[in-house]
């Protein structure tokens, strides 16, 4: 399982971020999902695009490797779960994740991160972020029997996917046609 983020559709409204915060009532400084602006100079023409990211439920999760208390597990469907009950708040996972995903909850003195709405998915519901997106830019894809093409594994600003092999996939933004006066 992984997120599919359509950067062409996304309008950067942060509704996904807010829906996630609302669903899990996270602390003011904690955001499991974050919407990042893509640097406007990355493409041939300056254009505003956004990247809505949460945990990438990586194939080779660094968080899971470094955690000394085995607070992380990878479910058979690929979801990387963080068990706050075991966490002792050593912050090792935050150092090791290239995407700054695990965040410290100062009240509980423990880490937390997106568990891909495991409870909602198990009930057959959509994730909170997917359900909230007004332009259907987010979805959860199942890699078993996944046959569509045209996705990329990284967009500008997304750290090297070879480290942890994230399962997040992206649809590239289309860069507008140039309007020029004929010579």
């Amino acid at each position, binding site marked *: 399982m992984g997120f599919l983020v359509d950067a062409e559709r996304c309008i950067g409204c942060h509704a996904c971020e807010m829906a996630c915060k609302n669903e899990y009532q996270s602390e003011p400084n904690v955001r499991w999902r974050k919407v990042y602006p893509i640097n406007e100079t990355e493409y041939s023409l300056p254009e505003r695009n956004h990247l809505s990211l949460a945990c990438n439920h990586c194939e080779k999760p660094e968080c899971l490797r470094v955690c000394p208390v085995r607070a992380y597990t990878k479910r058979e469907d690929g979801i990387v779960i963080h068990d706050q009950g075991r966490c002792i708040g*050593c912050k090792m996972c935050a150092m090791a994740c290239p995407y700054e995903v695990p965040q410290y909850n100062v009240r509980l003195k423990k880490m937390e991160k997106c568990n891909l709405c495991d409870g909602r998915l198990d009930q057959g519901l959509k994730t909170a972020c997917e359900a909230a997106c007004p332009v259907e830019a987010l979805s959860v894809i199942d890699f078993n029997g996944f046959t569509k093409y045209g996705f990329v594994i990284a967009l500008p600003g997304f*750290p090297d996917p070879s480290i942890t092999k994230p399962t997040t996939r992206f649809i590239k933004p289309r860069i507008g046609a140039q309007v020029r006066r004929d010579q």
Partner: protein
Amino acid sequence: MGEYPLILFTVLSQLSAGAAITLSLLDYFTKIDNSAGKKSTLVVLVMIALSLGISLLHLGHPFNAYRALTNIGSSWLSREAILFFLLGILLLVYYFQWKEENSFRKSLGLIISVVSVLAVVSSGMVYVLPAVPAWNNFSPILFFLFTGAALGPMFILLMLKLTNGAFSRLVQFTAVILAASLMCFIVYVSVLLSGSGASASTGSQIVGSGIFWPRLLVNWILPLGIFAWLTFKRISPDRKVVCSLFVMVFIGELLGRYLFYYASVALKVAGL
């Protein structure tokens, strides 16, 4: 509190590991006064316990720290915790062996040396993370070993009443270690600066930091200058000199560790 507990824990634990190695090797190859050896073992043991205690302050839930021993399969943090814990237990046994000639103590000393090296190496491995390019190489291990090798022998020198031969050899050893670590540091920073992305920004954070020059001064320039001057004047250093050198290098290592934690730039999603 930030990373202060980690700065203290790593420097103190490496100092203790270096001291444990020096003590047990001196005991193996030379003759040490029993009561001085016993006292030094106790001091090293207390320092290890203290450093482990300080490391708990870094945790959100110090009372559940025992759980950190459970993931030796993949977590270097678990391995580090177990090895330092084991080192403490071995030193406790060692402490009770300080009676006349004792071959068990000498063999135990060798095991202590091996465990000390492994403990410091695993401390270094904790920071070998692909997400922090400046650490994702041999450097954390190398510099942690240098810290132990620079501070440990001087510490034991100050604890024991050594004969002149062993004393001056240990002083020479420390000078060589300091010179080698300075060279490695220069190479390391140059390589970072010549890189790109997160490595280059780590390099410029290190060099641009206000404590870069103070660190160079107390950690290397002053101590090495003093060594050079003593050699030139053919003066053999006494305990007072070693004591002030120890204090300088100790402060230098603390500053260096501060830079290690605060100057490192991790990978992250660009934007925002």
